[in-house]
Each structure stands twice: as C-alpha cells, then as structure tokens.
C-alpha cells in the first residue's frame, strides 16, 4: 500500500475506568476502560476500547422527564429500580445514567433518600453507573456526599462539574474514588480550564470525562460537533489537559419542535432518529459515551457501532 495518511500525532487519549467488578472491589458484572485512542475515531487498525458505550438515561422523579418517554416507558418511570433493571435486561444498554431529579423539588433536603436511591439502583442493575446529582448549588454538598458514599467502590461517573461549581463533586470523587463529568459551554478553552481546576483540587486526569455540552441536532449541534473535533485534535497533538474521553448527551432531542409537531404515532420514530443521527455524528467526532433516553435508539446505535468498529481492509494504512 503506497499511501499512509499524514497525521503527525504526538499524544493519545487517556484511559478512564468506569465501574468495578468484584475482583476490582465493586459489584458490577463488567467494567469498561475507555479512552486510549491514538488517532481520529475509528481509524485505529485494531479495536482500542469498548467505546462507544451507550448509556440509557433514567430518573427518580419522572415529573421532570420528557412526556414522550413517560408515555413510552409507562409505569417503569415510576419505579427507578425496575426501570434500571429493564435498561440492562431488555433495552440492552452498556451503562445506566441516573438523574436524581427528585433533588429538583423546591427546598429538597431528604439526603438520606438520595443515598437509598443510589443503593437501590446499584442493586437493581449490574451495569456501571453514571449518577447526575443536584441542579441547585446550595444542596450540592449533601447530595454529592450521599451519592459518593452510596457508590463507594463502584467507580461511578458523577455528573456534572462546571467552572463555578465543582468542589462538591470533586470532593465526592476524591473521597470515594469516582470519576467526574466536566462540562463546559461548547468552548475548548473553558473545557481545558476546568480540567486544570479539577487537577489542582486533586482529581486526576484519568478520572475525568469531558462533556463539551451537546446541543440537539438543529439546535446548535454543529457547535458541539466542532468542539469535540477540536478537543480530540488538541489531545492528539499533545495537549494533556484535553486528553480525556468525551460524552455526548443531547437530552433536548426529546422535546424539540420536530418531535412535538410530528404526526401522532410518529413522535417516537422522530425522537429515535434524532437521537440516532446525533449519536453517530458525535461518535465520529470522538464521543465515547453516547446517552439516549428512548429505548429504541439503543439497538440502532449498537448495530451501527459494530459496523464502525470493523475498521478497514488491510490495504489502507493509517498512521
């Protein structure tokens, strides 16, 4: 083969481990090591990691969840344990992302329940978990303490740290050995800064997953897409402060106009397609965890990722 693609990379994406099996000190049936990429996504000659992983999003108070999903999943949405279990057994997700939406109620203070919910979900499913904490900075300290402690040993991925608001989640990550989702508003410089702030407080690079914030398709997605490409490029060019795996979560996809105004009976289909196209494009840009809310999106993504990871025939050499 005469051609080699002239890239000149000097760096690689760092590894992050999600979940812990029994031998690793936890109770998950599988753990994932993501990251490790040495070139652009899907150009490696051999599979580098199990990524992209598909995370199914659930919550513990469905009043804050998109009506379309409340409708589709029905009673499951009222029982977070059953819902988590179904995500594993029937929907085929790789991870479960639990949003503690109950903490969004006004004047929330039942932190014991937070601990209990996390423990319940940890028992209901043996998949590695992502836990989204509070929205309200005033209760961050207690909420993340409860999450961190409840998940001790399980190597959770805790969300979501931002520039002005990362101390409690970092504390939980340090105290109980979890990883952190670091979110910035579609700006590579802010993403880098946040990673530096986290490192200064003690969170190591191999415990950070970058969330560049994903706008829904048609609602700013291209900004997120380019932010991801730029982060991946910088990492491969040697910028260690950006060399972390990324997550894509276009939660707005379920409530956009195109879904709301689709013909009755076609709303689910529209939502699934929206999540699907977003997930594929994001994976091509470097996202290694793709979050979805509609169960039907999962098998579609799974089939596509299998085909994507096939790599190329021997003739094409990639550097």
């Amino acid at each position: 083969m005469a051609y080699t693609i002239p890239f000149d990379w000097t760096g690689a994406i760092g590894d992050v481990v999600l979940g812990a099996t029994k031998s690793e000190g936890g109770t998950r049936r599988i753990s994932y090591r993501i990251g490790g990429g040495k070139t652009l996504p899907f150009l490696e000659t051999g599979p580098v990691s199990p990524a992209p992983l598909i995370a199914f999003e659930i919550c513990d108070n469905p009043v804050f969840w998109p009506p379309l999903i409340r409708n589709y999943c029905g009673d499951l949405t009222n029982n977070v344990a059953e819902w988590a279990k179904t995500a594993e057994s029937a929907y085929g997700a790789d991870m479960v992302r639990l949003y503690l939406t109950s903490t969004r109620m006004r004047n929330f203070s039942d932190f014991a329940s937070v601990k209990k919910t996390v423990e319940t979900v940890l028992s209901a499913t043996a998949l590695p978990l992502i836990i989204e904490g509070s929205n309200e900075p005033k209760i961050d300290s207690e909420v993340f303490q409860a999450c961190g402690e409840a998940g001790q040993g399980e190597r959770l991925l805790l969300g979501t740290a931002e520039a002005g608001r990362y101390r409690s989640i970092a504390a939980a990550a340090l105290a109980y050995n979890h990883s952190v989702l670091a979110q910035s508003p579609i700006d590579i410089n802010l993403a880098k800064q946040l990673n530096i702030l986290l490192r200064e407080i003690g969170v190591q690079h191999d415990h950070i997953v970058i969330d560049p914030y994903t706008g829904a398709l048609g609602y700013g997605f291209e900004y997120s897409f380019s932010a991801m490409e730029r982060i991946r490029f910088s990492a491969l060019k040697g910028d260690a402060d950006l060399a972390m795996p990324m997550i894509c979560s276009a939660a707005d996809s379920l409530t956009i106009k195109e879904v709301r105004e689709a013909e009755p009976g076609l709303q689910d289909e529209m939502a699934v397609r929206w999540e699907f196209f977003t997930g594929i494009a994001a994976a091509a840009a470097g996202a290694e965890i793709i979050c979805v809310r509609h169960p039907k999106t999962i098998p579609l993504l799974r089939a596509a990722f299998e085909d994507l990871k096939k790599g190329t025939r021997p003739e094409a050499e990639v550097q």
Partner: protein
Amino acid sequence: MALKALDIYKLLPKKNCKECGDPTCLTFAMKLAGGKADVDLCPYLSDEAKSVLGATTRPPIRLVKVGVGERSFKVGEEFVLYRHDKTFYHPPGIVFHVSDTQTEEEIEAVTRRVRDETFTRVGSDLRFNGIAIRNESGSPETFARAVAMVESVEAHLPPILISRDTAALKAALVHCGSYHPLLHAATAENFHEMCALAKQHGCPLVVQAGTLEGLARLVKDCTAEGVSDLILDPAPDSLGDFVVRSTAIRQLAITRAAPDLGYPVYLDATRAGNEDAAIALGIVKYASVIVTSPLSPGPAKAALTLRQNIYTDPQKPIQMNPGLYRVGTPGKDAPVLMTVNFSLTFFTLQGYLESTRIPCFMLIVDTEGLSVLTAVAAGKLNETLVRDSVKKFDVENEVSHRKLIIPGYASPLSGRIEDATGWKVLVGPRDAAEIGEYLHEEWKN
C-alpha cells in the same frame, strides 16, 4: 503545501493590467492563494509559472457539477479536514434510489417526492437532490424505460445512472443525456467505454476501485482520456472501512500529498448494512454524493438537518429574520421578551418559553447573528436598535403595556433602552433556562 500570497505574487507579471478582472496583481495573488481564482485568467504568465501556480493554487478537490439547471448541485472545492479550520463549502447531494425492477408507479412516486418535498428550517429550504436509478434487471431496455419514467415526471432532477453494462447506460442516456447524469461507475476493466460515454454526453463520472492506488490510477487514466469531472467510489465494505478511506482521501488531497485523489467522494448508503448510519457518517466524513433508499419522515428530517448543521460556516453564525415572533397566542397583556437574532439564542429561548406555556412575544432584533454577550460588547445591541425595532415591528400596537424584558447580559443597556423607547425595562435572567421561573415570579405581578 499551498503557496502563500506573497510567493504567488512574485511569480505574477505585476503589471496591474486588470485583464484578469482584478484591480491589482496583489488581489489576484490573494485569490489564488485562497483557491478562489483560476490561474488561466492571467494572460501574461510564463508556462513555467503557470504550471507551478496551477498545481498549488487549484483547489485541492475538484469542483464537480451534477445535473443541470435549477436543481443541479456542485460538490468538491473543499480545503479542510475539520470544518472548524475554515468551513465545508459544498453540502453533499443526497439522492433517492430506485431500481429498474420497481413498478412505474413506485418510480414515479419517488421522483415526485424528490421534486416536491421541502423541509424548511431556519429560513432555508432543505431538499433531496436527485434520483439514482440502478440497473438490476440486467436488461438495457428495462433500464432505459425506468429512466424514461423518471424523466416523464419532469422534475429536472440530477440523475445518477448505476450500471455495469455500458449498453444499458447508452440506452438510458437517450432519455436523460441532456441532464449530464452522473455515471456509476468506471473501473479498471471498463474505463475506456465509460469515458467515451461520459465525453459524449458531458457527464461527470464515478470511478470505483478497491484500493486508493487503484482509484488514483483510474483518475490518471480517465483524465488522460479527457474526462476530468470525476467522483471517487472507494467501495467500502463496512462503515468503519468507509470512514478510513474517505478520511484518507480527504487528508491526502488537501495536503496535496496525492493530487490524483483530489476529487469528491461517492457513498452508496443502500449497500451499507445500516443505511441511516451510513448517511450520517457520509455527511460528517466527506461524502459528496450519498445514494439512499427513499427516507421516511424521521430519517429524512434528521439527515437534512444534520447536513445543514455540518455545512454551516462556523465563522458565520446563523441568523433569524428580525421581527416580532409569537409563542402560543399572546394577548394584549402578554410579556414581550427582547433578544438577538442569533439562531441558537432564538431557538433556545423559544424552547424554554414554549415549555412555560405562558403566551408571549419575542422581539428579535438584528445583531447580525451575534449572541447577546458579543452583541453587547461590540455595541451592536444598543438602545437605538431596540427603539427602531419596537417601531418597525409595531410592538406598541400588539400590547397595551409598555414593559420590555431584556436578557440578563444586556443589563448595562437597561437605562439607555428605557430612555430611548420610553418603555420600562425589566432585566431577565442571564440563563434562558431560568426564564420560566422568572416569568412566574416577576411577570405575574
């Protein structure tokens, strides 16, 4: 590596004769440096200069036109691997596929869809771009009939003719030759005949090979035969394979490491195991012509939206038309929220307003697509603009109150806006996500 303007200027005659259409040689040199001019326009270049300049200033990926007239589309003339480095210029044509083994009604229906279906987003009309007719029957006559069926709809769409059989192509071209259809495909075995056909009808030609080397060789062979409007089909056998090959072609072309690969890429999504995924990947990974089965509304809208998003110039923000927009059915006492015409701002705010279920007005002012923060910093969002917009869009006739809610980041302007408009200004939250809470607490009073 592309030459810089200064180096190009050194090779030009420096007469400022203006015969190339530009006022100075410096201007022409800058255009050449950006791949935006044809070196042949200068009548006073030495042959040597011409060949040096030609090789390095010609766009790294050839511009190829598919079809004729209003529905034709151009692809190629790309310069970057990442849209954020500059932009992607020519969106891929997404083309619906029919087989000559389908019924006439089916073929007609698909053609009519491509002719008529329009999905409007952000002020743009998004459409599919052509019809690909595949010769699966094995019969030239059947193929020709199918093509004739397509043309009978009088959609004037760019056709793609897919056949291994040059006789079948010849028969089909009788019905659509004047549209300069894209012919699929020339291979190492048949390129002589294919080139002849292409030349005869002025058609662009897809070349197909299983290796990049094979593609480059075919390109050399076809250009030698006088056919330069070529599109590459790397014949991928999986989605992963496509990503590798398409990326390789793009990177080798723009770095000018393999000039023979400097052509647009063709992707037949119907041959991929997962068609939707192939379309999505084709859009983000440099395909310029994507053939797909006729799409149902879900994937159709998603695909068109993804294409629109990826092929937007990252340096030019998308803008809404300025005006007074309604959310729900606002009455005379409905709140009026002013913000900029950056589409991301608009849609984000609109989405949150819709979910509050409070009918209201959105007064969108023209900040040339800049966000609130940038527009305030640049002085583009100012009290004069707000005053003029209130007048222009007749806001005072729509509501009986005189209270204007402005974005949190525009708070430094509140006093001046009050002075200029005579309205009372309420400063809203900085984050649109809080608008619901804000309206419930502040407006209800």
